[in-house]
């Protein structure tokens, strides 16, 4: 089959599937959040509410599109497009199945643009362009809440871009490539012991956290926090334009879930079921489902996180990025370089990551102490008291 046709088919599959998947992820999110809060969730449209996404889509299509008179029309209309476009473009180099495995039907390639050697760099380059959608949307809205949301989003993305990039540099050093397919292949051919999570657990944590911030998901959704900024940068958006922003956000979420599973959890490798040399009928399907299952797991974790922990304060958000995550990801990178240069066993990186993780605790504990010390009316804890209740709640200082 000609290469072009295959590419077109793959694009059609991805572009067709992602909005549908996003719709059902929204349903999943609503259901999961309902269950976590002892509610039932949407259950009116279709059996168990399974047709709810359709109803929502129809609603968003038929809703009135309000374009306020005070907006910059061109930018206002372009912004949601940029948001979706960049999110979908970043997905172009993400393999969503067993790329290059024997037995898969010819028209299925599992990646839109195969063999891109700058894969990871491409994703970060394009993914961080998504903030243009947010900034332009917020700015063009000509509304103080939108502008504040957009400013927050840009500050946040600029900050978290650094730990995000640096946390995967370790993987690039380990694998000797930034090509996602090769990174995946290297883990798969090495078996379970070659999964990057064993060597880079801290990097996995940093990457996951930073990409949550990149995708503007809770607990890092300060750009659109309802309590402070009404709707944040999409305050003025309605109907389908708002839906496009939402679609962009969810596509981002899918991308980071796939990336985390590919970079750290061995892609479609699962010991005993989907290994490099496992050959049985429909093995490609199983391998694809394994990868998608891992991604689905991360999506569930992201959703659960959203409904579990409260939002960060903005200064805490910046503190986490600049004082904790950037130094730690730098140290992690140094550790990988050290191990590579002196040709030590890769397993040294597991205890090394644990040490760095302890450093995280120390840094943030000392930051908190420093913050307390700067408060008006701070009284140094007495030695005796510290003995008694250093681990219990409450330090009462009488003035």
């Amino acid at each position, binding site marked *: 089959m000609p290469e072009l046709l295959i590419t077109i088919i793959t694009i059609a599959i991805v572009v067709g599937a992602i909005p549908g998947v996003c719709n059902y992820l929204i349903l999943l999110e609503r259901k999961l959040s309902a*269950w976590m809060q*002892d509610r039932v969730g949407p259950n009116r449209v279709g059996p168990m509410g399974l047709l709810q996404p359709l109803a929502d889509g129809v609603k968003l299509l038929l809703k009135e599109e309000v374009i306020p008179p005070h907006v910059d029309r061109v930018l206002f209309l372009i912004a949601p497009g940029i948001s979706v476009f960049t999110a979908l473009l970043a997905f172009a180099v993400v393999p969503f199945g067993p790329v290059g495995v024997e037995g898969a039907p010819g028209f299925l390639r599992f990646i839109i643009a195969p063999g891109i050697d700058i894969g990871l760099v491409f994703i970060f380059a394009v993914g961080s362009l998504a903030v243009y959608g947010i900034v332009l949307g917020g700015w063009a809205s000509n509304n103080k809440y939108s502008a504040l949301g957009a400013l927050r989003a840009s500050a946040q993305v600029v900050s978290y871009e650094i730990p995000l990039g640096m946390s995967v540099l370790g993987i690039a050093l380990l694998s000797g490539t930034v090509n996602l397919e090769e990174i995946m292949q290297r883990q798969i051919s090495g078996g379970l012991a070659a999964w990057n999570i064993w060597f880079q657990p801290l990097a996995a944590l940093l990457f996951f956290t930073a990409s949550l911030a990149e995708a503007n998901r809770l607990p890092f959704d300060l750009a659109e926090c309802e309590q402070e900024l009404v709707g944040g940068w999409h305050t003025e958006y309605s109907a389908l334009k708002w839906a496009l922003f939402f679609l962009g956000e969810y596509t981002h979420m899918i991308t980071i879930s796939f990336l985390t599973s590919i970079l750290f959890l061995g892609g479609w490798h699962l010991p005993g079921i989907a290994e490099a040399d496992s050959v049985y009928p429909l093995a490609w399907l199983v391998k694809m489902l394994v990868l998608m299952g891992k991604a689905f797991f991360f999506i569930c974790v992201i959703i659960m996180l959203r409904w579990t922990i409260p939002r960060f304060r903005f200064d805490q958000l910046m503190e986490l990025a600049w004082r904790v995550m950037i130094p730690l990801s730098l140290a992690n990178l140094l550790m990988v370089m050290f191990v590579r240069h002196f040709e030590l066993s890769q397993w040294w990186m597991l205890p090394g990551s644990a040490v760095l993780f302890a450093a995280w*605790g120390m840094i*943030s504990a000392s930051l*908190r102490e420093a913050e307390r010390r700067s408060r008006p009316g701070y009284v140094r804890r007495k030695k005796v008291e510290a003995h008694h209740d250093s681990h219990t709640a409450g330090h009462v200082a009488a003035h």
Partner: protein
Amino acid sequence: MTDTQKKKNVRWVEEPELGFWESTFVPAIMQGLRTTLKHVVDRKPVTQQFPEVKPELPLHYRGVHRLNRDEKDRVKCVACMMCATACPARCITIEAQAAPPEWPDRDKFPKSFVLDELRCIYCGMCEEACPVDAIELTHIYDLTGESRSDLMYDREKLLGVFDRTKNDPRDPVRTGRGKLGPASEFVQLPAVGPATTVPVSDRSAKAEAAGVIRTTGREGQQ
């Protein structure tokens, strides 16, 4: 209060200190995830599926009003205006008319009785005030109307609510079923007990009948 006293009364409380592990966020987040996951796995929704499942209302629920009928199917109301006077929302409008001669047990009856269900705050004061138990609040809570005038309940509508609810075990005709009501038969007013408990030293506690307080005659004995 002096300044030093004020300062003594103020207790400065510091937030609980984060330990080393809590400072890394990860264990705390895991703990939170465990809690939420527990709810997902062990699911006991508290939601009531309203239109299909009707709520269990308490027996003293105060819903739409009704005007009771007596044993001859006449409206029990004697148009005394007590409910309209008691109503804090001023939602009851009564027009009285002299009772026909064949109704010997009363002087008046309501020519029109209009109750604005939209203005009503469902406090139940009208029911409390009614001397003949003519107006009562029922369990009907889901009343709807297509216009404001739909919800101006007149005498016939209120009597219709009675016809709908009189056999509902949750809406019994409370007292004096069939008769006009206890108030129409009073020869003398009964003693009314105090609404709240009173201390023994209170003079209402020493009264002959609860609530009856004599202001003369007993003072000398105390």
